[in-house]
């Protein structure tokens, strides 16, 4: 077998492993974090600090029977959870964790992540529709309209950044911000005075795209029971869960690369993978922190936010940056 094929396989296995490990331990981190915010300990019985809790949860989910509700569309019902997890793992392939650690550096890396993210919303749609549950259908329609409306400002913001850097390669994007935090994209420069706003828009959009609170309308438990995965149990539910956390990691990685200088150190010294991990976990901690602070938005409030605030501002920013890039 040729070396390139072997490399690809190893890369994919590492990507799956990283995604699964993150998904498992982010659940633990989320529960511990929520516990601390609410002044309770969180899971602390299984193992030291409850660190074995994800294993117990995993064992429970795997050994449970997979129930398929009567009248459900079996094929789509089975496919949907896989479709939720697979694109997330695929996106890991192109994310550069450091100068050298990347499975496959692609010239269109940014595009690839968005292309596969669009598959994720299809999985929600299929899950809700195929389980033949009214709550599921309502939730899936909500989640998809949400996904569509937040992809627009997100892509416009990405275009702004790509325009400044002149590349869609995630590696190039990160390298262009090397050498201290004053080179990062989040810091406003002459050509892009509105970058902090862009960052905020991108951050909000990635919260919405990953269906995180306060935008978790697809699984609004007080209205729609559990939303699109109401009928899922055992590993079907597990895959949705893991997919969600894998998506969070991808969202955080993307923010880190686009705005926070990738694996670069804030002071321009020793760029390494640790900086990258530190940044993405700080961002994920912020995601968790936000989730346990705010109530949920309404569906129309969410769409209003996207179409009336985020899209106009990001479009304005795009035009402004384009104009200023010509000037300077």
């Amino acid at each position, binding site marked *: 077998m040729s070396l390139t094929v072997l490399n690809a396989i190893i890369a994919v296995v590492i990507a799956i492993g990283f995604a699964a490990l993150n998904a498992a331990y982010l659940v633990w981190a989320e529960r511990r974090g929520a*516990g*601390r915010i609410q*002044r*309770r*300990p969180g899971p602390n019985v299984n193992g030291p600090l409850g660190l074995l809790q994800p294993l117990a949860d995993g064992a429970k989910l795997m050994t449970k029977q997979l129930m398929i509700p009567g009248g459900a569309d079996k094929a789509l019902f089975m496919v949907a959870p896989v479709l939720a997890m697979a694109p997330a793992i695929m996106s890991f392939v192109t994310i550069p964790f450091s100068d050298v650690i990347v499975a496959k550096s692609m010239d269109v890396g940014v595009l690839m992540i968005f292309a596969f993210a669009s598959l994720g919303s299809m999985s929600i749609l299929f899950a809700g529709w195929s389980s033949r549950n009214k709550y599921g259908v309502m939730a899936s329609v909500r989640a998809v309209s949400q996904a569509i409306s937040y992809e627009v400002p997100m892509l416009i913001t990405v275009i702004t950044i790509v325009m400044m850097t002149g590349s869609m390669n995630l590696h190039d994007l990160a390298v262009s911000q090397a050498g201290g935090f004053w080179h990062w994209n989040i810091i406003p420069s002459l050509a892009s005075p509105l970058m902090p706003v862009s960052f905020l828009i991108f951050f909000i959009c990635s919260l919405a795209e990953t269906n995180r609170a306060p935008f978790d309308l697809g699984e609004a438990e007080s209205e729609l029971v559990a939303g699109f995965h109401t009928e899922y149990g055992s590993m079907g539910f597990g895959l949705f869960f893991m997919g969600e956390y894998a998506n969070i990691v991808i969202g955080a990685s993307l923010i880190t690369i686009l705005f926070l200088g990738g694996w670069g150190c804030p002071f321009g010294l020793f760029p390494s993978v640790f900086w990258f991990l530190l940044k993405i976990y700080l961002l994920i901690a912020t995601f968790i922190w*936000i989730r346990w*602070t*705010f109530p949920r938005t309404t569906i129309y409030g969410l769409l209003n936010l996207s179409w009336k605030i985020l899209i106009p501002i990001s479009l304005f920013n795009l035009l402004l940056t384009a104009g200023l890039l010509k000037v300077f």
Partner: protein
Amino acid sequence: MGAYFSEIFRGLQSLAIGMGITFREFFKPVVTVSYPMETLKMSARYRGHIELVEDEKGQPKCVACGMCQRACPSGCISLASESVEYEVEEKGETKTKKKKVLTKYNLNFTTCSLCGQCVENCSFGAIDFSKEYNLASSRKEDFHFDLLQRLKERNS
């Protein structure tokens, strides 16, 4: 236009304030009690299920008058007694007197509503609340208490 931006700004500000509060709470100590590992002491007036009170000789104080049974809204107390003849020396002569002795005192805790009227209505102070709250079972029979038996077990 001004209102549009000021609303965005005020909104963001309110979100930041909220996040500040949860951030401060994050570093405060945990307030919950990890129940099976640590427990709290019940307050002095805590009303658990009832228990018979014993006198100095270790016998139940109860005289089987049945007031508690009549006061109970749920009818969860059932007691029985028998007359026992006993002899006392009074003014130099031995007399035979009759006395009611408790033979059975059952509490059906499944229907008890812990109102405390039995204890309130007892003129002899013969029943009292226990401080037990760790009652859990999947069998109904586990909550049919034989209080006399429990009293004996406590004494032995």
